[in-house]
C-alpha cells in the first residue's frame, strides 16, 4: 500500500459553531482553510446570528436545517452544543473530514513555524497505519524515518488510516479535576511524532482536533453519550470519548488504523475547570464503566462494515450498560437512530447538498 493522493475537493472542514462570532476564528485559519469547502453548523441553542467573514467557500446549517432533515423520527439524537458538528458530518458528501473546535487557532511548532494542521491530518489519512506491531521510530511513513530492525516484513504495507487524532498546545484536553488541581498548567511540549495506536489498545479520542475517512468512520461518530448536565465546555462532555472508543473498536475489528500525535492546534484559554467540576463530574464517573465495557467488546465475524459493527455494539450496550445508568440506555437508542439516519441521509459521497442557511 502506498500513499493515497487526496485532492482538496475530497475534504470538508466541519466547524461546530458554539460561538456566534466566528470572525477572528476563521481569519486565523484563513491561510489554511481558504482552499477547502467548509461546513459550519450553528449550535441549535445559539440565539444570535452567526458572523462569518467573506472569502470562504462554505455552507451553513442551522437549527431549521437540523429540524428539517432529522425531523421527529430520531428523537434520541440531540445535536446541541458540541454535538452540532455531527450534523455537518451527516450532510457532507466528501470522503475526508477535518473538524476543530471554534476556540482553537493554528499552532506554531518547536521551531516557530506555523503548523498546517489540515495538511498534516490529510497526510496522516493518506499514508498507511501500522496497528499490528509497534514501530519504535513512530510513523515509518514520515519523511526521514522507516521501520526499525525487527519489524516483520509482512506487516510493513500497513492498513488504511480511518481516524487521525491531533493534539493541543496551551490548554490541553484534560478533564476538569486534573485542570482544577493545576489551574496554571499549560501544555508547551511539542512532540514531533505521529504514531499508530496499536490494535486492541484503547484511548480517549478528543474531538477538539480530529480528521477522519468519512466513509469508514462516519457511522461511528455521532452524538451518543450525552451527560445529564452537558454544557458548552469540553470539561462538561464525554461524547467524543464515547465515539472514539466506538471507532477504535470498529477499526480494530475491521483491520483499520487510528493515528495520534501531530498536528497540534493552539487551544485558547476558556472556561474555569473548578466551575465545571462543581457542576458536572458525571463524565468522570461514567468512564469507570465505559472503558471496561469497550475493552470487553468482541464483534462477530459477520460484522464486515462499520454499520454492522455499530449495530452489534448497540446490542451490547443495551445488554451490559443500559441497566447501569439511564444515560447508557439513551446512548444505545441514539446509536441505533444514528445508524438509520446515516443510511437514510448520510451515506454516499460525490454530489453536494444544497444548504438552506
Amino acid at each position: 500500500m502506498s500513499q493515497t493522493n487526496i485532492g482538496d475537493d475530497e475534504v470538508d472542514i466541519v466547524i461546530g459553531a458554539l460561538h456566534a462570532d466566528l470572525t477572528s476564528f476563521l481569519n486565523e485559519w484563513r491561510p489554511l482553510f481558504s482552499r477547502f469547502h467548509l461546513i459550519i453548523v450553528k449550535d441549535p441553542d445559539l440565539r444570535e446570528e452567526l458572523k462569518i467573514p467573506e472569502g470562504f467557500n462554505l455552507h451553513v446549517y442551522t437549527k431549521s436545517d437540523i429540524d428539517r432533515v432529522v425531523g421527529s423520527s430520531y428523537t434520541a439524537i440531540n445535536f446541541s452544543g458540541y454535538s452540532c458538528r455531527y450534523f455537518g458530518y451527516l450532510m457532507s458528501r466528501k470522503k475526508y473530514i477535518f473538524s476543530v473546535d471554534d476556540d482553537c487557532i493554528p499552532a506554531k511548532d518547536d521551531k516557530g513555524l506555523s503548523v498546517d494542521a489540515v495538511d498534516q491530518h490529510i497526510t496522516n489519512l493518506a499514508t498507511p497505519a501500522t496497528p499490528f506491531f509497534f514501530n519504535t521510530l513512530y510513523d515509518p511513513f514520515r519523511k526521514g524515518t522507516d521501520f526499525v530492525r525487527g519489524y516483520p516484513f509482512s506487516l510493513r504495507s500497513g492498513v488504511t488510516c480511518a481516524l487521525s487524532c491531533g493534539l493541543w498546545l496551551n490548554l490541553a484536553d484534560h478533564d476538569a479535576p486534573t485542570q482544577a488541581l493545576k489551574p496554571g498548567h499549560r501544555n508547551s511540549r511539542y512532540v514531533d511524532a505521529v504514531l499508530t495506536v496499536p490494535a486492541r489498545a484503547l484511548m480517549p479520542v478528543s474531538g477538539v482536533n480530529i480528521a477522519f475517512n468519512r466513509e469508514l468512520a462516519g457511522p461511528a461518530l455521532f452524538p451518543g453519550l450525552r451527560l445529564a448536565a452537558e454544557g458548552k465546555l469540553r470539561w462538561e462532555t464525554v461524547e467524543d470519548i464515547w465515539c472514539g472508543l466506538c471507532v477504535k473498536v470498529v477499526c480494530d475489528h475491521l483491520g483499520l488504523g487510528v493515528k495520534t500525535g501531530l498536528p497540534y492546534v493552539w487551544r485558547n484559554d476558556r472556561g474555569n475547570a473548578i466551575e465545571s467540576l462543581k457542576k458536572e463530574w458525571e463524565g468522570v464517573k461514567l468512564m469507570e464503566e465505559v472503558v471496561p465495557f469497550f475493552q470487553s467488546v468482541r464483534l462477530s465475524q459477520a460484522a464486515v462494515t462499520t454499520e454492522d459493527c455499530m449495530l452489534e455494539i448497540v446490542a451490547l450496550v443495551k445488554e451490559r450498560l443500559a441497566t447501569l445508568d439511564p444515560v447508557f440506555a439513551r446512548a444505545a437508542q441514539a446509536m441505533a437512530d444514528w445508524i438509520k439516519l446515516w443510511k437514510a441521509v448520510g451515506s454516499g459521497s460525490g454530489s453536494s447538498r444544497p444548504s438552506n442557511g
Partner: protein
Amino acid sequence: MAQPAIPVTPALKDDLDIVIPTIRNLDFLEMWRPFFQPYHLIIVQDGDPTKTIRVPEGFDYELYNRNDVNRILGPKASCISFKDSACRCFGFLVSKKKYIFTIDDDCFVAKDPSGKEINALAQHIQNLLTPSTPFFFNTLYDPFREGADFVRGYPFSLREGAPTAISHGLWLNIPDYDAPTQLVKPLERNTRYVDAVMTIPKGTLFPMCGMNLGFDRELIGPAMYFGLMGDGQPIGRYDDMWAGWCAKVICDHMSLGVKTGLPYIWHSKASNPFVNLKKEYKGIYWQEDIIPFFQSVVFPKECITVQQCYIELSKQVKEKLGHVDPYFQKLADSMVTWIEAWEELNPPTKAAPAAQPNGVKKDAPAPKPK
C-alpha cells in the same frame, strides 16, 4: 525540568549496574564519564579472552571475558552467545543490583534540540521509577513526566498505572535499521528528536533494541535472555529482539509496563549492511512464524513468577516453533539453561552481601559459592 549535568547525589548510585558488552575498546566511556562515573560497571568482554581491554581510569568495574563466563557457569555457559553482543546478558546474570542500564560501545552522548547534553542514564532511571500506563493509551504520552498529565476520558481507576519493568531508549544519527533498509537507504540519519516517553500498550509487541536499554532486574531480569547468536549459530542481530518479545509477553501477563522513547543516545557506527544481511537473513523470514507465535502466547494462571513464565515459554517455543528449524529446539533448551543459571547465581534467599571495597578495580571475581 532542568537537570544538573552531574547530579549532586546520583540517583540509584548503589542500586544500578551499567552493563557494557565490548569486543574492541571502551574509549567511548570518556564521553560518558560525567554521567557514569558514580556507578558500577560490568564489562562483558566478547571475543578473544587473551586480549586486554583497557578500562579508563576512575571507573569502578568488574570485567568478565569468555574464560570467566566458562568458569562461572561451567556447562551452563553454552547458553551465553559468543562473538555477538548477546553476551551482554551474562552481565545481567551476575549483577547483584536492582536496576540495569545497558549500552553499546558505539553509543555516545547526544544533544537535545537546545544543544544540551543528554544524561541518558538519568532519563532511564526516571522512566523506571515512575509508573507505566499499559492498560489505556494516554494521548499526551507519559503522564508522569513533568509538564504532562492524563487526558480527559482517562479513567481515574487506571491512573495509578503499573510498575515499569523496561525503559527502551532511542538513537539519533545511525538509526537501528535492518540490513535491507540499510542497503536501500544508506545515507538516512535519524535527526528527529521526539520529546516523548510512552508506554507500549498491553498486548502489543515491539522490536526491543539492546543498545540503549534500562530495566528493573528484580521485576523482569530472568526474561532478559538474549538468546543464542553469533559464533556457531545460524542467526545474529535478533538477540535483543528475542529478549524483547519474551519480556513483553511476560510483562503483559504480570501487569508490568514497558516504556519507549527518551532518552536518545548518539549512535555513531553504521555496521556493514552486507555482513548484517548474512546474520539477519534467516531471522527475516523466521520472524513471520515467530511473531504470530508471540502474539498468541497465553500463560496458564499457575505461572506467577517471571521464571515460571519463562520456563513455560521455552516449552511453547519447542512445541510451536520447533518445526520451523531445529535452532528453536536448541534455543528452547538454552532458555531453560539460562533460568537454571539465573536461579543458581540469584538464589531466592539472599545471603548477606560480602563487604565490597569501594572504588577498587576488580578483575575476574572468585567463583561464586554453591
